[in-house]
């Protein structure tokens, strides 16, 4: 039997899981419908960069990144809470989840922010002034 009644039980985790879930629905749909057009061998580099140069898109993508990472890793940790009996191992896994989330967040943000100019090569010119 595990310890009972020590520490907060995750009202925040529970609440934010639902909150991020709700917000993710429209954000994810927009992301999917814009970024995942795969009929033509995926979105070309130019197309993506053309979109991403827009600060609103940047903001949207970063929002999406944060929400998705939180939702995913919080969900993962909920699984650990259920299935990992040892509190020591749970602590390690918790640290790893947080760390993993942060790393991916940084990678993602760097990616989004690194796109500073539209793809000038190839087809992009047809579209944008």
């Amino acid at each position, binding site marked *: 039997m595990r310890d009972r009644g*020590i520490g*907060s039980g995750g009202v925040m985790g529970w609440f934010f899981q639902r909150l991020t879930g709700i917000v993710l629905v429209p954000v994810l749909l927009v992301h999917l419908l814009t970024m995942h057009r795969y009929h033509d061998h995926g979105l070309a580099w130019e197309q993506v960069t053309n979109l991403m140069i827009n600060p609103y898109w940047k903001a949207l993508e970063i929002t999406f990144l944060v929400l998705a990472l939180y939702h995913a890793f919080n969900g993962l940790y909920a699984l650990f809470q259920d299935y990992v009996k040892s509190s020591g191992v749970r602590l390690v896994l918790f640290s790893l989840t947080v760390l993993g989330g942060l790393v991916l967040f940084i990678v993602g943000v760097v990616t989004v922010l690194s796109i500073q100019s539209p793809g000038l090569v190839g087809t992009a010119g047809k579209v944008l002034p």
Partner: protein
Amino acid sequence: MMERIFRIFRFNPETDKEPYYDTFTIEVQDTWTILDGLNAIKWHHDGTLSYRRSCRHGICGSCAMMINGKNDLACEKQISSVKGEITVEPLKGFPVTRDLMVDQTHFFEGLRLVKPWLINHTAPPTDKERLQTPEDRKLLDGTWECILCGACTSSCPAFWDNDSFLGPAALLKAYRYICDTRDEGLDERIGILDSKVGVWRCHTIFNCVEACPKDLNPTNAIVQLRRRLIQEKL
């Protein structure tokens, strides 16, 4: 009278290393319940079969067990409602003491943690009842009828995974008091309800609702408790 086959989970910690299933073919009458069948087996075939039973009409909660994969009260489940071979097993998730008997000490211990008693800081009126409108009293319906048979908690994956989780029965009991307009004990119970073993462990799987032989909805109680806690916490 007709013949029916009972396949019964057996385990005697004194003699058996592993549990096994024993099969009995007995004559049953059409008005018999599963409990009548078990009694017939115990009294006329094998006295060593152990199970709990008392009131025979679904109010004491002794004979909760798993009948053909579903938690039920043996005394209420008509044999005629079960097709084919009848498999009887103890409630899942609790340690088996013997045959169909499980150890519910831990289950009742969990109940104690939610402080299942009326908490009210003002002295009641002398020589009079506390007043409560019929509408307020109605809020308790669907909570106080719980017979603590353990069928719900025994069906709960969150409880299997973490037996410190209070489980649906204890949380239903907590809600029974928290939604009582005479009760002022939310503050005292918030610690345990909000803890690692409290309401947040529930994954709204609804097994408890499926399992309850009294058709109660413990998930609703948990959901309502969460709303109260969210209001308090945020």
